[in-house]
């Protein structure tokens, strides 16, 4: 993992591939990973890149272009919270977040989830889905807004989108009466979003079990990382986590060390939730 952090420290352009273009998600995750591992100068450099591309409305788009989806605003909030001197950026991003929501729809007997709950979407003017809602819930909680009505509704959405037997996917539960399939990555993110909640829904426990059963040596890097983040947040980190991470790291080194994948592994390597920033209040 030291080598991963060293590599991340040296990268000025964080993308999804080793030779890929700059993108907000890899940059935010790398910033968090560097900050967590004490590399504050490098983290600040990436935080500044995010500040430089923040739109005038407070959003941070996925690839810095103004008409791109802005779900990465959530991750930018987390990255700035982990650094010093970005309160203004955080304030504007939070303001945009609270004013933005996925497009609700009337209840539909053909689908299982409740489409009336307000969450967050991938792209503007589209429906709310699991992962962007999880990311914004996590960000708002970290920013001290865990009790905000939008955060509470986001938690409600995340719970609503858990599958009947546990786990989650992109945010669909039943389609025409048929349950859909769970996926490790989104389940991990859902569990991270629901960490610390008093939630007696049995699907939370079954989702944690699903994760524990599906983190195996062949689990791919992003899914493995989010799965571990989710389990760790519920104090259910598997004993073989380090072995799984080591195997994933070797695969990524062979492939050329994408900032995105290395950052995820670096965050998943933390045996607790100390990587998550935490503020008890937010300035108006």
């Amino acid at each position, binding site marked *: 993992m030291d080598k991963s952090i060293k590599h991340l420290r040296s990268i000025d352009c964080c993308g999804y591939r080793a030779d890929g*273009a700059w993108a907000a998600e890899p940059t935010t995750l790398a910033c968090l990973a560097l900050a967590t591992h004490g590399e504050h100068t490098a983290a600040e450099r990436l935080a500044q890149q995010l500040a430089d591309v923040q739109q005038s409305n407070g959003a941070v788009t996925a690839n810095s272009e*103004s008409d791109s989806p802005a779900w990465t605003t959530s991750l930018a909030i987390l990255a700035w919270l982990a650094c010093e001197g970005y309160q203004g950026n955080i304030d504007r991003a939070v303001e945009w977040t609270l004013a933005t929501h996925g497009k609700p729809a009337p209840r539909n007997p053909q689908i299982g989830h409740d489409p009336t709950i307000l969450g967050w979407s991938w792209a503007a003017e589209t429906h709310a889905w699991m992962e962007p809602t999880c990311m914004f819930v996590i960000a708002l909680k970290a920013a001290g807004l865990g009790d905000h009505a939008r955060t509470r509704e986001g938690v409600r959405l995340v719970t609503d989108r858990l599958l009947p037997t546990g786990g989650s996917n992109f945010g669909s539960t039943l389609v025409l009466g048929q349950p859909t399939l769970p996926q*490790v990555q989104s389940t991990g993110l859902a569990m991270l979003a629901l960490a610390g909640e008093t939630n007696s829904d049995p699907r939370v426990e079954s989702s944690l079990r699903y994760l524990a059963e599906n983190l195996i040596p062949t689990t791919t890097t992003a899914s493995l990382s989010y799965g571990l983040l989710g389990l760790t947040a519920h104090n259910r980190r598997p004993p073989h986590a380090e072995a799984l991470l080591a195997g994933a790291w070797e695969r990524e080194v062979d492939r050329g060390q994408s900032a995105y994948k290395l950052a995820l592994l670096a965050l998943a390597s933390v045996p607790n939730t100390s990587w998550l920033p935490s503020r008890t209040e937010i300035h108006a």
Partner: protein
Amino acid sequence: MAAESHGDSRMNAQQENTNPNRRTFLAASGLAIAGFAGTKLIGNALLPKAEVFIARHQRYDGPLVQTIRDGLAACGLAPAHFTNKRVLLKPNLVEPTRLIPHMTTHPAVIIAAAEVFRTWGATVTVGEAPGHVRDTEMALVESGVSEALDDARLKFADLNYEEVAWRVNRGRLSPLKGIYFPRTVCEADFVVSIPKMKTHHWVGITCSMKNFYGTLPGIKYGWPKNVLHHNGIPETVVDINATLPRSLAIVDGIDCMEGDGPIMGSLKRMGLVLVGTNLPAVDATAARIMGIRPERVSYLALAADRLGPIAEARITQRGERWQDLVSPFQILDEPHLRGLRAEGGELVS
């Protein structure tokens, strides 16, 4: 215009509101894209009939390379068409799981297609933008495609996360003024749809045309690509097909999906491979084999005579006759699907 030039990876935000005149667009984009797109729209009535090749008794461990070669030749394609060209193979890996192998394009079909084009001198890339899965690596591993690509030393392009370029919507059926495509798609000379032949619980069938939803990047359209759904599924299917570079189809109809497709349906063994250069004609033929009336499939009805023929009289069958191969697929007993049935076939819940 920088954003329109062939291979340019940088999107110009101002393009969204720009309506370049046609001459400028042609000059900037290159004839390979604009010429074919124009042909698609100008007058399908002036085009010759479309050819669709069907092979039966096919197996994943059979001579698929020869089958595909035969199919391409039957549709008028020769090796010279692909020499020094960039060919992108686009399988269907929407939401793979090893528990449902008949959901996704079998690796054997992808590898066989790659071998054909590579021996013809093309540079081949396999690319996909899974619509329900953000972890593309997981999709590759669960589908078995990852191992197959490694063995064949084939390059994979994760179309969900590449740099994108904006293209004017050539179909103009949906409200979308333009469509963002990943760099690998924009740079391809040929984009080959390699779908699985399946029913679809919303639109009836999914085959070569709907498969091209997976050429659009999730980084712009989300997971799922809700922007497309909100702008009309059949309309955006046609628009995407109208806007892509030159395309052709190689359909994995060996192990198919019926019932609650495109994800949770049942296995139906058909042993078929379909090949064609006109995707509406290919999909219409597949629909007929499935016992579904193509003119009742919304995106095919829209594509008819815009992008190609779906009428039986305007499709020249090469290889097998579709009439000899009909085996009605189970479709869900839902109001919006009941009218699709040709004859026979079972409605299931």
